[in-house]
């Protein structure tokens, strides 16, 4: 028994020694031989384990990258949300630069600082004051048109009254000068403060919806030609001697961020032609609308005529008189007014009383006690 144990122990030690020698031999292998051995093992019976480890590493990388990807997606979403406002701001600034290049001189660029809620927007603080050449009653404009007027001036900033202010007035007219009036904020109704009224327009002057209204230059504060708004509709007021129109303002007070303050010396030179492109675009749009309407009307007339011809020919083929008397296209086809002739005197004698040749046959029974 003891010999067997000793023998087993000897075998164990021999195997252990052999394994240690082999391990040391593997450790002592040069790199040129070590790599092929390791590669051979990895590509043969260790391939499944290597594959498992690769997949686990990839899974871990995916888990680690998930947070970064989510953060990237979040920031991307945030940026895309900001992109709309940035595009709008960029567009406004481009327009302002374009306006500046058209005005050329005599203006002070400024930032409008909104102090209160948007719905109460009647005044703004402007980031330019008397040191920059701003004076009281200097007009404030935006690329779209009229914004307001400076009412208080500090050395470094100024206070402006927007067109939404109840005390704001500007003399306005149609670009062709056929209609004049006084523009002010439309303070009644659900849209109070967000639309403009053009009051005091002479009764003979009518304005169509969509017509542009600009400042007239009367009064000495506003130069001529600054867009005030476009006509929406005529509204009824107690003033019977003049018309009042509702205008969509050229400038939304909530969108006023970058503005220009016109200096007094610039006003004397006028702003003719600065918004000419706007007026021209408006006129061109009106022309396009009118031409589109006339083209549609012509097409409708041609179609109606063709339909009428077909109906007449069908009626003629069936031996019936033409259907011109009850033409369905009458509603759209203008027909000449028939010439009224004086009635001829009736020369044929006839009975004045028409007698019934058929006895009355009433199917409704009479009620008892009544007479027919």
């Amino acid at each position, binding site marked *: 028994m003891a010999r067997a144990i000793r023998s*087993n122990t000897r*075998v*164990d030690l*021999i*195997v*252990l020694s052999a*394994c*240690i020698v*082999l*391990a*040391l*031999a*593997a*450790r*002592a*292998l040069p790199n040129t031989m*070590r*790599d092929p*051995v*390791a*590669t051979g*093992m*990895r590509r043969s019976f*260790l391939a499944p*384990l*290597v594959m*498992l*480890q690769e*997949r*686990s*590493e990839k*899974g*871990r990388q995916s*888990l680690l990258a998930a947070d970064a990807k989510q953060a990237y997606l979040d920031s991307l979403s945030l940026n895309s949300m900001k992109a709309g406002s940035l595009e709008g701001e960029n567009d406004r600034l481009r327009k302002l630069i374009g306006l500046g290049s058209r005005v050329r001189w005599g203006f002070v660029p400024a930032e409008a600082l909104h102090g209160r809620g948007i719905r109460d927007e009647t005044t703004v603080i402007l980031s330019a004051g008397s040191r920059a050449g701003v004076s009281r009653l200097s007009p404030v404009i935006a690329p779209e048109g009229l914004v307001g007027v400076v009412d208080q001036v500090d050395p470094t900033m100024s206070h402006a009254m927007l067109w939404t202010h109840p005390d704001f007035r500007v003399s306005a007219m149609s670009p062709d000068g056929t209609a004049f009036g006084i523009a002010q904020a439309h303070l009644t109704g659900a849209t109070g403060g967000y639309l403009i009224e053009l009051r005091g327009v002479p009764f003979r002057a009518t304005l169509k919806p969509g017509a542009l209204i600009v400042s007239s230059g009367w009064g000495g504060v506003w130069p001529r030609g600054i867009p005030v708004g476009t006509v929406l509709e005529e509204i009824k007021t107690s003033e019977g001697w003049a018309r009042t129109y509702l205008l969509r303002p050229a400038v939304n007070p909530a969108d006023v961020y970058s503005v220009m303050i016109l200096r007094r010396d610039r006003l004397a030179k006028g702003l003719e032609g600065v918004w000419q492109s706007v007026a021209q675009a408006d006129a061109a749009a009106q022309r396009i609308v009118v031409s589109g309407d006339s083209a549609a009307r012509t097409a409708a007339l041609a179609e109606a005529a063709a339909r009428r011809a077909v109906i007449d020919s069908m009626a003629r083929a069936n031996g019936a008189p033409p259907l011109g008397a009850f033409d369905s296209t009458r509603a759209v086809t203008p027909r000449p007014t028939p010439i009224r002739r004086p009635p001829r005197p009736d020369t044929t004698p006839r009975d004045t009383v028409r007698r019934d040749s058929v006895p009355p046959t009433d199917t409704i029974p009479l009620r008892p006690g009544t007479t027919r």
Partner: protein
Amino acid sequence: MSMGGAIRAIISFLIFVALHYTLRPLLGWRAPMDFLILALLLAAVRVRPSTAAVIGFVLGLISDSLAPDALGAGALAMTTVAFGASYLKAVFFADNLVLNAFFFFLGKWVFDIMYFIGEQRVHGVELVQQLLLWSPLSAAVTAAVGVLLLFIMRPLLEPSPA
């Protein structure tokens, strides 16, 4: 050991090896658990020292094949640890979780000491830091996971009643 016990031990061994190549890289801890050491120790206490030495040598070569620069270091360390565990199984092999945890901790730490010294890749302060800080931490994690797995896989690892 009966045939059923041997099959269950082999299944447990394969599960540990598979965990070593799946769960360990997935977690990617700085002081990782070593499922190969756990598998080796659990196999070593069930076989003769010579068989344990062979298992350790093969398992070491497998682990070394993924790090060719250290080829042989892992085989040497695992051979020694497996032989020692099998030789001392009378002392350490007991149905006591704390003792088993110490067994796992010691096996992993001894393996790390032999491996890093034999690998000769880390030197100086870094080697001391590795052997006295990260290796004990890794050994502790390995012991904890080993005890947990022993608890979970008790039906597989318990000797058959026959």
